[in-house]
Every structure is written in structure tokens, then in C-alpha cells.
């Protein structure tokens, strides 16, 4: 099983991986390529990663969430070139109740953004091209 993929992401297959009759609450998050960043029109994004470490760090993030809450976590991040509107990441947390599902889902996407070595380069409509540094954006951006 790999947390990274070069293929388009859809939620149903990942949902099927975490569903079970004991898990009545399933929270999920999809990160989608937005059409603008910091006021500039975005055409597409190129995601790259330190693949071996990203896989290892995703596994740790998932294991930590599953140890902290009674949930099963599904996680996939896409790499390569993504057009505006395409899904870059999916996190799913399935638990007995919605509290733990929401908390674990949120925790995993926050940890992924903070810890997993993935980078993106944005291609702007004005012809520009920039590596994205979330720390350089306004706090609520990204």
C-alpha cells in the first residue's frame, strides 16, 4: 500500500478501505487545486516529494491518529501535474462516532501539511512559476 499516487484521486475506493459495520461516523477531507493563490490566477500545480520519506511520514501520521482515537484512517496524496479543480489529497477517518472521526481527520491533514515532505510549484495564468511556501502566506492560506 502506498500513500502517494500519480493517478487521479477519487474518494469511493478509499472509503471502501476504511468502512466497516462498527464504524458509524466517517469524516473526510479533500484538498483541491484552487484557481487562485495570493490573488494570482493559477493554471495548474506540480507536486513532487521525497517519496521514501513521504511514505514513511504518512505511515507515522496515520499510526499516531489511529493510536490516539479509535478510528481507521485512509490517506492518499497525488503527485505530478494537477489542473485546477483536481483533488490533491484525501484524508478519511472512520470511527464508531463522529467526534473521533472529525478530530482524527483534522489532525491527519494538519500533520500531513506540517510534516510530510511534499512540494508544489504553481503555474500562474500570467506565465509565472513559483514554488509554494505556505509559511510565507497569510496564516489562513493553504
Amino acid at each position: 500500500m502506498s500513500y502517494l499516487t500519480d493517478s487521479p484521486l477519487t474518494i469511493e475506493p478509499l472509503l471502501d478501505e476504511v468502512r466497516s459495520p462498527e464504524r458509524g461516523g466517517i469524516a473526510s477531507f479533500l484538498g483541491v487545486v484552487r484557481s487562485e493563490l495570493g490573488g494570482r490566477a493559477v493554471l495548474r500545480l506540480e507536486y513532487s516529494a521525497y517519496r521514501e520519506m513521504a511514505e514513511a511520514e504518512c505511515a507515522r501520521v496515520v499510526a499516531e491518529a489511529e493510536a490516539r482515537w479509535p478510528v481507521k484512517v485512509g490517506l492518499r496524496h497525488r503527485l505530478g501535474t494537477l489542473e485546477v479543480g483536481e483533488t490533491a489529497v484525501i484524508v478519511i477517518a472512520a470511527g464508531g462516532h463522529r467526534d473521533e472521526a472529525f478530530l482524527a481527520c483534522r489532525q491527519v491533514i494538519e500533520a500531513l501539511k506540517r510534516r510530510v515532505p511534499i512540494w508544489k510549484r504553481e503555474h500562474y495564468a500570467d506565465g509565472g512559476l513559483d514554488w509554494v511556501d505556505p509559511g510565507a502566506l497569510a496564516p489562513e492560506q493553504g
Partner: protein
Amino acid sequence: MVTIRLFAAYAELVGCDTVDIAVSAGATIGELLSEFRRQVPAAAPLPSRLLCAVNLAHVLPSHVLQPGDEVAILPPLAGG
């Protein structure tokens, strides 16, 4: 000799994916980074604080290197 892997913006800035740096046995990541900046002039534009990983895990500058370690310098993370 330690091989440092570079990625994304940093690989572009420095102009290569790996650089070999000579350090003494028992050096820390902080000492390796100082050597890296001294031995690689192209590293000058990199920020003063650099995120590093050893053997696929994040480490602090105080981390002591072992022979055979896989070392990486990571640009600001931007997944998701």
C-alpha cells in the same frame, strides 16, 4: 563523507540533487550544514534555518550522524 539529498526549490537553487560533504566522524546535522554552506557556494541563497531529515525522519540540528545515514535538506513543506 556524507551525501546530502536536495529537493524541489533547493535542488533548483543549488543546481543538483545530491552533494557530498566531508565532515569528521560524530558530527551533528548543524555541523554538517555549516560545512555544506562553506563547501557549496551555490547554497548561499538558502535560508539560515533549514529543515533536515535523517533516514526518512525529521531531526533537530543537534542530531549526531552515523555512518551510512541518508541525509536530506527539505524546502518548506507544501503538501495538501
